[in-house]
């Protein structure tokens, strides 16, 4: 592995007395795409949220691009800790299942808000940056639309562009396609795959096994708040060593659903034969032509 950009050391998280993360150690190298899989409640999302301190870890430390921050669950370090957290967040961007675009701002405003007000870029600089990333996710024509007028896939691509405008060292995705209609998943995964191939450092919590196989440098399997097994996708997915990984993948392949996610049948081979999946990120797919409503 190249030099690590993210280093998580012995991370623990309790919600009340519930021990959700039980000592996680994880290193992510520069340019690496790490996909975290595992059943619901295994702590995948909590791990991401602890890395950028949306959830304060209970024990342990997080290091992103040379900045190491220890857990401060009692708020002892107050303002200084909050300052460090903001530095971590500048380095680690995050994408959400529910997109969370700001509905009262146009696409462009969504993209330039933080670069202007947080990074201190001049407005035209920020606009240029935003347009570059909008073009990258294939949404240049939606520049002045409001989020309500976008499809789910367009919303998530906008959110990706918004995160890219902060020029973070690592992008974290929390189940970025779970809230999408099946036919819109492909366009988002395409953008992510392009990013991975361009060498963007990524940590992705996902249930899209096919995508993990295609785009991951490393697959991490989590169970009960711990990393059980990790390695190259072909090894973890096709030849798992740990019994728990085997069981998870067997159930997954048999039923075609993630345990605990039974409402999403037919997950496994969705992208095979999906014509939208292969189109380049820059050119609009057929469904781009139809604005919802």
């Amino acid at each position, binding site marked *: 592995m190249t030099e690590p950009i993210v280093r998580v050391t012995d991370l623990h998280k309790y919600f009340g007395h519930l021990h959700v993360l039980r000592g996680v150690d994880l290193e992510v190298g520069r340019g690496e795409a790490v996909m975290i899989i595992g059943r619901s409640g295994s702590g995948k999302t909590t791990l991401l949220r602890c890395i950028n301190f949306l959830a304060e870890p209970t024990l342990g430390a997080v290091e992103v691009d040379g900045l190491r921050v220890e857990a401060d669950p009692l708020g002892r370090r107050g303002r200084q800790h909050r300052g460090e957290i903001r530095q971590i967040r*500048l380095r680690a961007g995050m994408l959400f299942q529910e997109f969370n675009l*700001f509905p*009262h701002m*146009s696409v462009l405003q969504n993209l330039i808000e*933080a670069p202007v007000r*947080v990074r201190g870029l001049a407005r035209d600089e920020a606009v240029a940056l935003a347009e570059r990333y909008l073009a990258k996710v294939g949404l240049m024509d939606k520049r002045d639309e409001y989020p309500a007028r976008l499809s789910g896939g367009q919303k998530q691509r906008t959110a990706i562009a918004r995160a890219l405008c902060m020029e973070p060292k690592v992008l974290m995705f929390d189940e970025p396609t779970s809230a999408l209609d099946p036919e819109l998943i492909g366009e988002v995964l395409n953008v992510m795959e392009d990013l991975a191939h361009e060498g963007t450092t990524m940590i992705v919590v996902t249930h899209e096994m096919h995508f993990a196989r295609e785009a991951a440098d490393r697959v991490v399997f989590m169970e009960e708040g711990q990393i059980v097994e990790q390695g190259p996708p072909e090894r973890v997915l096709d030849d798992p060593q740990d019994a728990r990984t085997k069981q998870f993948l067997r159930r997954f392949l048999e039923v075609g659903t993630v345990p605990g996610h039974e409402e999403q049948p037919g997950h496994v081979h969705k992208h095979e034969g999906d014509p939208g999946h292969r189109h380049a990120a820059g050119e609009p797919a057929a469904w781009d032509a139809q604005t919802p409503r």
Partner: protein
Amino acid sequence: MARFSELTGPTVPAEPEVVTRIDAGQRRRRFWFRVQFVLVWVVLIGLLVGALWASDKIDPSFIGTWAPFILAGAGLTIIICAGSIVLATGLALVGAIARLSPNPIIYSVASLYVSIVRGTPLLVQIFFIYFALPQLGIVLPALPAGIIALGFNYGAYMTEIFRAGIQAVPRGQREAAEALAMPEGLVMRRIVMPQAIRIVVPAIGNEFIAMIKDSALVSTISVTELLWRASSVGNQNFRTLETLLIAALVYWLLTMVFSLFQERLERRMARSDR
């Protein structure tokens, strides 16, 4: 529509004529609904006015003489309302943030304010500020006293509305902003507040309409606004029917104008909304 038929090709038949007819029918019904609405109002109000006229108890020359004097009070009513609205909105914004503060002192001060103001009658508050405070050496002229009383009172109710509005903004909005490294104050000012305000506009509009009417209470501390003028002219001449009708009409018109403005605002905001 055009795109859709392009995608699916020439196999789709032309739009059947019935679609146009359904559309026209809907438009016609909406038009006639409006016409009938206006007609019913005109007829009912006409009947009311006609009945009053027929009773021969209304003195038109009296109205002609005194109406301008009473109507001149509307200006002051509007000034009172505008002043109290500004004061109340400011107090409510601060109050709402304080009511959501993790700081126990800030929280309890704001809660005490809301509790006292909501727990005592507005009339008592007006009297207190105008008649009781001078005993403590704080003498306020009637107009500022009235504006302060109304503003404080409505500020407390609106505090709770704003608080609910802030809480109604989805948590993911705050998290997304925080994940973009925005500091707390910026998250509140740029992301949460603008959305909270959109959420509360209908409720706040109702408060403002109630306030327009409650401004009449300020007549009790001899602010020469609409109701004060109406009742003093009426009492002196034993013709309160005419003067109160004029006052009521003006309050009604003011609230209608305000509702219209509010509707426009809501519609404009709905355009960008979710």
